């Protein structure tokens, strides 16, 4: 591999890795507070993409509310993205209300939340299919405005290409990650969140309103998932109601590799998997699907707690 190709792969990997990261963060937030995987996260990802699409471009009857709005600078797209993500956040809250809270209140086996969230995912995906069919929807290429579709850097004969989408994805991801990182590591909220995560009943004994925190977390998680879905959607189109599923699984690989509950871990995991995929030699691209998992497997054997996860030292 020559230097130019290396650079190209690096850029591709970082861009897709940053989406993996924000998507995975949604998982990791819920995991860190409830200790359980939210299987509906992939469905929220899909939902976010459809919501943003129907706001920004519009079809299936209701949509395009913002599409024909005459606002300068293509403001309607960022607006759609934001509203789409907020609505996804609300969807996250609904998921909590339907699939998590009732179980918590009944003291069910925590693993059961895997099943109930899976049920919500099934409902969401099939309702989308019911309403809008399995067709593919694609964002028009000028959705970001009249920016050139790609930057092409010439290195003699060779070229390195950066697609506009990649830059936007990267920029949005970085902003979101920075905000979230600040929230969790530097505020009282973050500290309380960690307390709830470790032991909800002890946290409530300290005056922390556990239920409200869980609700916030699901909102944030849905927000991030929907945002990631919209970004991927603008980049590659919405490949039907099931398109979040593949990401759902990969997102899991990302957070476990990075270390469950760790925000820098999710970012690192996203980048590692994004890069690993980008650097799969073309001849072996058949095995690309397995790369994320092979990496995960190896990482876990070497560091059972994930790259940045805290090992659970327990004193007896």
């Amino acid at each position, binding site marked *: 591999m020559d230097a130019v190709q290396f650079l190209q792969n690096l850029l591709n990997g970082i861009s897709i890795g940053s989406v993996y990261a924000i998507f995975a963060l949604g998982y990791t937030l819920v995991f860190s507070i409830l200790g359980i995987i939210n299987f509906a996260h992939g469905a929220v990802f899909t939902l976010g993409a459809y919501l943003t699409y129907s706001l920004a471009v519009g079809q299936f009857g209701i949509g395009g509310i913002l599409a024909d709005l005459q606002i300068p600078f293509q403001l309607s797209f960022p607006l759609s993205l934001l509203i789409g993500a907020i609505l996804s956040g609300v969807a996250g809250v609904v998921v909590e209300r339907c699939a998590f809270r*009732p*179980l918590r209140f009944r003291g069910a086996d925590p693993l059961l939340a895997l099943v*109930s969230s899976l*049920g919500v995912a*099934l409902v969401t995906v099939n309702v989308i299919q019911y309403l809008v069919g399995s067709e593919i929807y694609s964002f028009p290429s000028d959705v970001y405005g009249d920016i050139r579709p790609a930057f092409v850097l010439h290195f003699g004969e060779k070229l390195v290409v950066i697609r506009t989408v990649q830059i936007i994805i990267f920029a949005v991801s970085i902003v979101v990650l920075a905000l979230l990182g600040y929230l969790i590591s530097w505020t009282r909220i973050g500290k309380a969140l960690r307390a709830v995560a470790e032991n909800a009943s002890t946290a409530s004994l300290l005056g922390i309103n556990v239920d409200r925190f869980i609700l916030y977390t699901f909102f944030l998680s849905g927000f991030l998932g929907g945002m990631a879905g919209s970004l991927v959607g603008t980049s590659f189109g919405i490949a039907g109601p099931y398109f979040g599923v593949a990401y759902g699984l990969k997102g899991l690989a990302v957070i476990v590799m990075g270390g469950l509950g760790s925000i820098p871990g999710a970012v690192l995991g996203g980048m590692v998997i994004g890069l690993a995929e980008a650097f799969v030699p073309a001849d072996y691209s058949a*095995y690309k699907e*397995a790369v994320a*998992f092979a990496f995960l497997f190896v990482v876990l*054997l070497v560091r*059972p707690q994930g790259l940045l996860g805290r090992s659970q030292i327990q004193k007896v």
Partner: protein
Amino acid sequence: MEEFLQNYGFLLVTLVQQSLLAMSLYFPLSAGQLSLASPGFYALGGYVAAIMATADYFAPWRDALGWAIFPLEWLIAGLVSALLAFLVGVPALRLRGIYLALATIAFVEILRVVCLNLAITGGAIGIFGIPQLFESRWGYIWIFGPLLVITLIFSYRLDRSRVGRAFKAIREDELAAGAMGINPTHYKVLSFVIGAVLAGIVGAMSAPFLNTWNARQGTFDASISYLAYVLIGGGRSLWGPMLGAVLLASLPELLRPLKDARLIINGMVLVIASIYLPFGIAGALQRLKLSTLKRYASLRGGR
């Protein structure tokens, strides 16, 4: 009766088959290990059987053995699964909880992609034209049925034996189990291997049952379904996995009249079942039994 079997024979056998797969998840879970590797071993076992049944290389064997090739397929599928489970299990079972779950999913996915790319597994199309053991689908009950009975007896006896207690101890507190003289690694790997062997054998039996075998047989989705069977059925009871499999695997078929909406309703049932059966079907039955017993006792003038 005959008509009923014609209509529902395949479904009934599928329920038995799914129950077995749920059991394969239950064994590691009874030792506290959330392993989702079953579909991997299921796929592996299926490939073993499919290849032995169709590849030219095995033609002389088939001629020599006749129908006896089938039990041999099961045996070899079981052995291969055991071996692989041991190799994967020893390092992987150092992991806990979700970490282990994901490592096993990783294993399933890697295996799937590899099978998708090998010539011997028939690539994406897979292997087809697998020789049949029985004419009708219902006939397969004669192999899946006994296997389920054996597995249930196995699991019932296990639950009340020294090894079963060791599993439970590890599930409750691995460290304390160690301090009480139980070798956690040994029993964790054992539980994992038992599950893998079962899944492998079920796979080997399923290849002729489904007529064809391909890489879509062992997927992440399947892992999650099996987990749902166990949890909805009741993960702490040996009947749980079977009850869950029967309910959840028959549901999409029962909902057929709903056409487009059937998966929506299916999803809702999952949610509602999780909410109203917090300890699974088996747990709910247990409570029912306890409360009727109590009522009975009070009628009889007990305290």
